[in-house]
Structures are given as C-alpha cells and as structure tokens.
C-alpha cells in the first residue's frame, strides 16, 4: 500500500537512513493494530509524492522496532517526527489533517 518513495526504516537502519541523512526526514511511527495510523496513511503517501526530493518520508513499525520509539519516548501512535540534521525538528501525535503536517514540513524545507 505504501508509495514507492516511502522508505521503510528499522532500529538497525535508523541512524544511517534518518539521522545522517542530508535531507530532512519525516518518520511515521505506526503499527498494524492502530486505526488512526491507517487513517493517515494516504495523507503520508500524498506528502511523500508532493515533497519528493525536498524531504524523505519513512515509516517505522513500532512493533518490530522497539528501540527507536523508546529512545524518543513515543507512547502514542501515530507519531510523526520531523528530523533535520539528526535532531528532532517537530513532533506530531495523533491523526491530524494534511495541512497540519504540511505546516511542519514547510518549517524545515
């Protein structure tokens, strides 16, 4: 279902793919059992397409990758974190509208 320009990241690849990335990254922390995660999936797909080349969009399954969510204190999903230069630039919790996420993206690109 995920668009082809969305990267799947794991605890193992998070450092190299996200923290060391030259482009800012939007990471969607999700799980299969989370309804609102499904609800925002199409919005994430659209944003990945729309901001292709400006940010990289990634998804991390929190069920399979407990370390990274733990490191960022994530206790709710969906959580979207925007990383820039290895740091957290913005964090959004819950299924919010596309315009809300876009505002956050515009602040880092």
């Amino acid at each position, binding site marked *: 279902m995920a668009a082809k320009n969305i990267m799947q990241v794991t605890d193992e690849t998070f450092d190299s793919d996200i923290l060391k990335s030259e482009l800012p990254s939007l990471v969607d922390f999700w*799980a299969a*059992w*989370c*309804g*609102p995660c499904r609800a925002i999936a199409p919005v994430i797909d659209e944003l990945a397409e729309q901001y292709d080349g400006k940010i990289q969009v990634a998804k991390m399954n929190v069920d399979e990758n407990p370390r990274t969510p733990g490191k960022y*204190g994530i*206790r*709710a999903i969906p959580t979207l974190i925007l990383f820039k230069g290895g740091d957290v630039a913005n964090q959004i919790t819950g299924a919010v509208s596309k315009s809300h996420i876009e505002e956050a993206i515009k602040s880092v690109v």
Partner: protein
Amino acid sequence: MQQEMYDMIIIGGGPAGLTAGLYAARARLNVLLLEKLSPGGQVLNTEWIENYPGFPEGISGFELVDRMKDQALRFGLPIESREVTGINLSNGEKEVVLADGKRCKCRTLVIASGASWNKLKVPGETELIGKGVSYCATCDGPFFRDAVTAVVGGGDSAVEEALFLTRFAKKVIIIHRRDELRATKIVQERAMANEKIEFLWNTVVTEIQGDDKVERLSLRNVKTGDVSELEVEGIFIFIGVIPNTGYIGDEIEKDERGFIVTNLYRETNVPGVFACGDVTHKDFRQVANAVGEGANACYSAEKYLESL
C-alpha cells in the same frame, strides 16, 4: 472539479457518511464524499464492536468500516481524501471550500463530519499528549505493558477501553466523577469482574504531572473535597465527544455545544443541507444509529432534489 455541480456532497467518511454515500450511489446521484483522512472515523479507534447487528461474534472497527467502504465503492461512490475548511451558503448556493482553496458546488449537502474526543482541560494534559496522555487505548495500550494506568470516564468507551488495557497494564484505575458507571450493564459486569480494574468514585483529575512523561495525577474527591495524588504512567481520557463543526458558520443551527440541530428527516435549518451521525445533536452515539441517520439523510436529500 471547479465547475462541476454535484447533486450531493457528503462531508465525512465514517459510518453515517458512508451509508449516505451508499444510498446516493445506488440512487445514481452525482455524488462526492470528502474525507480528510481515510474513511472510518472514530470507529477506527474501536477494537471490537459487539452491538452492531449482523455480526454475532462481533467485528473489529477496522473491518466494519472497510466493509462499509467497499460496499459503497462497489456502487461507484467517489471518495476523495480532502479536508473541508469552509461552507458557503450565500445566494441560495451551496459551496464547499477545500484546504487547498478549491471549491465544489452542490445542490444538497450532507454533513457527517463526526466528533472528536473531548479533552479534560487540566494543566499538563496538552503538554503530555503522546507521553502518557492518550485518547485511544487500542492505539497506545501496548506501550503500557506492566504499567499502572488510569482511565477517566464512566461511559461505554471508558469502560471498554479500560478492559482492553488490562491486556497490557498491570493495573487499570477507572476514575469517575460519579458513584456509578453509565456504561451498558454487560460492559460494567465485565469490568467489575476483572481483577486488574479498580475504581475511584466521585473523583476528578485536576492536574496531570510529569516532566517528560506522565508520572502522577492530582485528584479531588467531589463529595468530600479531599485532594490526593496517584502515581500512573498513563492516563486514557474518555469523557464524551465534541463535534467536528469548526468549519461550519452560524448559518447552520447548532446546539450550545456545537452539535448540528436536525429534525427527524435529518434536515438542518438550511433547505438542502442535511446532517447525520455523531456531528448531530442527540443523546446516543452509536454506529447503529449513525448508519440509520445516513440512509435517512440521503433519502431526504433525494426528495429535496426532486422538488427543485
């Protein structure tokens, strides 16, 4: 999209909107359903639904709305994932304004934008959302394995979510401002029989404390006035809903809490504008009555179209 005149635009893709859409597609209306996320609405937060007829074993919230969506799609209902930011009702026209500034005109409008969870509105709540404050046990429950968590509220949602949390948490404390639950009896019985669930009656939360995550709650007993503190890692809040009507102006009549007022035919005070589901003024918010209202709204809209 800009010039087209739709017979009907439906705002919201939960059970009410999807049902209105199903009926409209079968009536061969030129209809469009707009949903800001993907279809489902609040049902997506519901783990298991046992009181929607036709599913004797119950059905997951996911699956139920997926089926509703597939059924509507089968009859050709167009569903677009777009956010509505305004409604224009001047000069007898009906126009929906989208987040990207585009506008769509329609002859009838069905408002089914649902409701969202109410907040407690106490210090610490907003700051700690996602850090122990949650409004969705099915989403966030698994983050609280072996933890002590609190649930605020006494209705079906609160008690059902508390039961769900016992799968993960060590202890679940239901904090309720009254001395008895409002939840359906069968749900109450399950909670009373569950060893992991405790109750704090006549109690309200006055503050959620914690630096980077929820650590404890400040409580007040509404009968005695006694204050106390309770150490928890999580607090799940289910104290009713507020309507998603922020994009709707004063032309459409709402009650004092912002829910849209309709008559039995799901008509609002504006001819050609109908409303159904949780966004409307009523006492009982269920999937079962949302779908009934959705069907009814579409029927009334069809009658209105015939009269034009």
